[in-house]
């Protein structure tokens, strides 16, 4: 029987019924301290430090603090220092503050080449789905599971169902992978992919470079999906080739990776079709990523919604967001713009945003910042002069980290502030208590910074 890519990955990693072998375990400071403590209490070690990699990202200030001991916030400092001590004690490679390889865990895995097709990858972070862009099976786990993987290099897992989302046609000019995934979540709902490993397919996906594919797989979790994945192809192989962690016998590896894609006639539990050509630039208006409209639309009217639960949720969201039903999205005016996060902070994302702001000035009403996903992205961007483009336009140019995506570090919104953000979650308080988040693509965020309100990037020049 023809197999899906998921079937192949699952079967190749099954140690015994319901026990999956993990090829790469990524670790960060927030979800790991209790796991290491658990190991110590039970007298257990880390089975495969050589398949484990750690970095500090969630808590790190992006102001140029270059060592854990210098972090001003005491609790953040303790958490990063605890990670450093744990990695030392258990022999786990770590890129902490001050390392030229430090960065957001889902940015550094791919850029170091340790994220590879055919792997199983886990991390105590829901956006681990990002790595599925390489044809890997990658998903987020909780701290008890982090401890389990550290101790056994395996994970107890129930086999998820499979879903394929096929995109017909190609994305229009100005429409990006971020718009594609936001539109998909808008269509399916935030619980639409629950219980499924999702494969994204079709010409619009194949045409994307790796960063765009990562953006899509990254946000799979916002649709409730267990894992997102995209078949590896020449684009994937070219990304991995020459990276520090690339397999020594690269050509052999490529031959193996070519066997991964879903075979013709393979069956999925759920099939969804989306017309890629019909997708417009998207902006969220509410407090879940599924509360999203085209930039050409207006803020929806809760009274028009069918289900009482949806109506009530929409009313609450509009009150929180400080928005009136019927307001055109292009009249919504953010005071803050954040370009960064594991969704959209790779060099290509920064290039796209820089092209929009080049030679222009950030609106007087807006404070805008760019936070590269990793120290390597930052170095590459600076070598290309992107930092000058952003700075001349009035953007702040900062050090690598999760930054304002989740506000666990000094980068936060204040109560009532409205932000155009390239991150992944517009939940209440996510970017700071009372903060109002609108999720958009890097291009759309950049244009909003210049104009002081959202614009349709397709007819903006």
């Amino acid at each position, binding site marked *: 029987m023809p197999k899906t890519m998921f079937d192949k990955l699952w079967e190749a990693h099954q140690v015994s019924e319901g026990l999956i*072998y993990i090829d790469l375990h990524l670790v960060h400071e927030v979800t790991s301290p209790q796991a290491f403590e658990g190991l110590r209490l039970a007298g257990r070690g880390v089975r495969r430090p050589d398949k484990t990699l750690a970095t500090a990202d969630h808590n790190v200030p992006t102001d140029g603090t270059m060592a854990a001991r210098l972090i001003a916030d005491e609790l953040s400092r303790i958490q990063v220092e605890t990670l450093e001590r744990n990695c030392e004690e258990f022999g786990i490679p770590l890129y902490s503050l001050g390392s030229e390889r430090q960065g957001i865990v889902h940015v550094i895995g791919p850029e170091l080449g340790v994220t590879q097709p055919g792997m199983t990858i886990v991390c105590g972070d*829901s956006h681990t789905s990002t790595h599925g862009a390489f044809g890997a099976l990658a998903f987020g786990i909780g701290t008890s599971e982090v401890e389990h993987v550290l101790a056994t290099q395996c994970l107890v897992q129930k086999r998820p169902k499979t879903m394929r989302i096929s995109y017909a046609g190609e994305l229009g000019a100005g429409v990006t992978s971020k718009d594609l995934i936001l539109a998909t979540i808008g269509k399916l709902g*935030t619980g639409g992919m629950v219980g499924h490993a999702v494969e994204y397919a079709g010409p619009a996906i194949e045409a994307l470079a790796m960063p765009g594919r990562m953006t899509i797989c990254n946000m799979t979790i916002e649709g*409730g999906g267990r894992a997102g994945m995209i078949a590896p192809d020449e684009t994937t192989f070219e990304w991995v080739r020459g990276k520090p962690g690339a397999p020594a016998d690269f050509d052999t590896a490529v031959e193996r990776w070519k066997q991964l894609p879903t075979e013709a006639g393979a069956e999925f539990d759920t099939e969804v079709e989306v017309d890629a050509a019909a997708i417009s630039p998207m902006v969220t208006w509410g407090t879940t990523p599924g509360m999203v409209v085209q930039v050409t639309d207006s803020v929806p009217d809760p009274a028009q919604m069918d289900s009482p639960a949806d109506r009530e949720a929409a009313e609450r969201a509009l009150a929180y967001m400080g928005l009136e039903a019927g307001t055109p999205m292009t009249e919504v005016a953010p005071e803050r713009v954040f370009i960064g996060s594991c969704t959209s902070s790779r060099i290509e994302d920064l290039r796209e945003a820089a092209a929009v702001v080049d030679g222009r000035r950030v609106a007087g009403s807006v404070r805008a910042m760019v936070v590269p996903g990793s120290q390597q992205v930052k170095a590459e961007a600076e070598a290309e002069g992107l930092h000058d483009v952003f700075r001349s336009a009035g953007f702040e140019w900062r050090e690598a980290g999760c930054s304002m995506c989740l506000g666990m570090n000094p980068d936060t919104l204040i109560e009532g502030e409205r932000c155009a953000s390239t991150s992944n979650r517009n*939940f209440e308080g996510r970017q700071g208590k009372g903060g109002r988040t609108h999720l958009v693509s890097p291009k759309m965020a950049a244009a909003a910074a210049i104009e002081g309100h959202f614009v349709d990037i397709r007819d903006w020049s």
Partner: protein
Amino acid sequence: MRPVDIIEGKVSVLDRADVDTDQIIPKQFLKRVERTGFGEFLFYDWIRGGEIELESNPILVAGRNFGCGSSREHAPWALEDFGFQAILAPSFADIFYSNCTKIGLLPAILDEQRCRAVAEAGEARIDVDDETVTCAAGVFEFAIEPDVKHRLLNGLDDIGITLENAAAIDTFESAGTTTHGPVTTTL
């Protein structure tokens, strides 16, 4: 983890859909390096802001897609530390569901109508072995994976169970395709 068999008592209700883990335990409380003491920060902004009131009871009835978003296990830790032993909802986010089962906090799926009936009854008795929720409105069945149920009923530690299988992991590793070699220490 302590065994979970019968959960009985009053019911608290949070009638909202898509409650995310950022609400359950906001990010500023994730900086602790301990597993305990998160209960007092449960739904911090919503409770402090007077948006919701929540009593500490054995059972919480919640809306669909409960626990979506971040994988933070701090969310189940906070719910458990606050006093909840079981959560009933029409659906749960995958990672949250799994995290609950790892710490002995029972997530049970009942359809919306039955959740409402339990909420209205105000008290219930959950029998994990029988997979039933009993309240004034009737006896409702829920489903739970057999191995998850076995672990909950016996309070078993996943790692201990897996390590009993260590020989199978050794065999798997020595079968050796190249992805079974070192990945991160050769950088």
